[in-house]
């Protein structure tokens, strides 16, 4: 067995070991080196969208995930909200996820407190943001909000009449918000596209988990004006708003892991081409 044949037949446990070492190393020293994340157009366009908003403009953020996807989706929720509060854009929050309400409440409270500290101004409920709560049957809720938010949400999460919240004053439906951002880990993203954007044609952008992202790229440019996928997308946004946090801290491990895998693929191919071995083709 020459070296190239060895490269081809390398025991996969070496791959495991190498990956484990590299990722733990990168994770241990994640604060010691930072990775310059390359930002992509699909994330930049969301950033530009909020950057271009006037203070007092409103966006609807739909937090359609539950605690099980919190780790992956929270960084992007945070980064976007911080950006909104920095710009003075008001955030109307809603959740279409059954187990999301308690979590959204916490997320809103934490991020608004953080924004208040960062930007040295008061970020208060009812004027800078509000949370209108949860209703089941997302397709119907999305359609209903197109008529009027009050159809399904006459009162907010804390049982205040929507009309009593300054932020909701004169806000009727999607026409009165600048755009809709749905951060989602489930099928509600499809519903936002089919029942929200296709029907009411409001500007829509999604933040989704890494596994889901490829399913939504085809909608970019038509149904969606922007897309944030997984940690990478969140890290880009954090970088754009200059608030590196969880997602950016995860990036060294990500970059290292991706490099490792690419490296192994290259090794495998060099070995394969040089050793001239023929193996059965991959099957379809």
């Amino acid at each position, binding site marked *: 067995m020459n070296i190239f044949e060895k490269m081809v037949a390398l025991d996969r446990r070496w*791959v495991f070991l190498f990956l484990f070492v590299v990722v733990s190393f990168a994770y241990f020293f994640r604060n010691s080196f930072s*990775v310059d994340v390359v930002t992509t157009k699909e994330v930049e366009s969301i950033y530009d969208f909020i950057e271009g908003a006037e203070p007092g403009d409103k966006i609807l953020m739909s937090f359609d995930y539950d605690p099980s996807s919190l780790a992956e989706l929270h960084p992007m929720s945070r980064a976007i909200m911080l950006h909104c509060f920095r710009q003075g854009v008001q955030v109307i929050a809603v959740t279409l996820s059954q187990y999301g309400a308690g979590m959204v409440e916490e997320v809103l409270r934490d991020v608004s407190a953080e924004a208040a500290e960062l930007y040295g101004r008061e970020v208060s409920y009812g004027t800078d943001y509000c949370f209108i709560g949860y209703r089941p049957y997302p397709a119907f809720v999305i359609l209903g909000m197109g008529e009027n938010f009050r159809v399904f949400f006459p009162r907010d999460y804390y049982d205040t009449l929507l009309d009593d919240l300054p932020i909701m004053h004169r806000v009727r439906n999607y026409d009165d918000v600048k755009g809709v951002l749905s951060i989602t880990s489930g099928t509600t993203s499809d519903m936002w596209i089919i029942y929200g954007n296709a029907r009411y044609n409001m500007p829509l952008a999604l933040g989704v988990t890494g596994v889901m992202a490829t399913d939504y790229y085809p909608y970019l440019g038509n149904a969606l004006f922007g897309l944030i996928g997984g940690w*990478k997308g969140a890290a880009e946004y954090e970088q754009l708003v200059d608030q590196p946090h969880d997602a950016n801290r995860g990036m060294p491990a990500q970059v290292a892991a991706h490099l490792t895998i*690419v490296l192994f693929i290259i090794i495998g191919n060099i070995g394969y081409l040089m050793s001239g071995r023929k193996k059965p083709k991959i099957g379809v």
Partner: protein
Amino acid sequence: MKRRVPLTIVFIVSLFMVIQYFVPLDSWAWMYQYLIDWTIIIGVFALLLGIWSLLRVNYEKIQRKSENWQYSIVTLLGLFIMIIVGFVPGWGNLENYTYQHLFYYVLVPIQATMFSLLAFFIASAAFRAFRARSALASLLLFSGLIIMIRFVPMGPLSEPISEIATWILQVPNLAAKRAIIIGIGLGAAATALKIMLGIERAYLGRD
């Protein structure tokens, strides 16, 4: 009788489900909700069948002292402890301390770790399969590599790579997924129709 009754049930119930989609009336909506509720309850009854099978397989392993029979004891112990904790009369619900803690400190860590094994397996699968063996395999390799390299800061190369990656995700990705989805939609609808009409009946067995 043994065949006809089940096939009739399938036909009637499925026909109702198709028609109710077009009828917004209350009575139909209630009936629909009932049917869904009923199937969920029948599903829970079925869990008993599962537990029975689990008990039987493990009991026999222990009795026959077949290979690794000791571990069957672990399975049965885990099962019984969890059932006792979950069913003790008077504790009455699932909020109880032990049940919750067994969930959070036994089930959740194992589950999350099993899930995270994917990080390793995705690496080994990529290493093994992403090879330029044939034209098709090379395409797989190429587009996979482009998407992965997108992660790595590469100076001036970053921009074009990111552009190509986005194009792949937006264009061929759309075409392929649409074709697959249409195929699945038709195939699934055809299978559903065959079940309704009693043509596809393998699920009933043959006796």
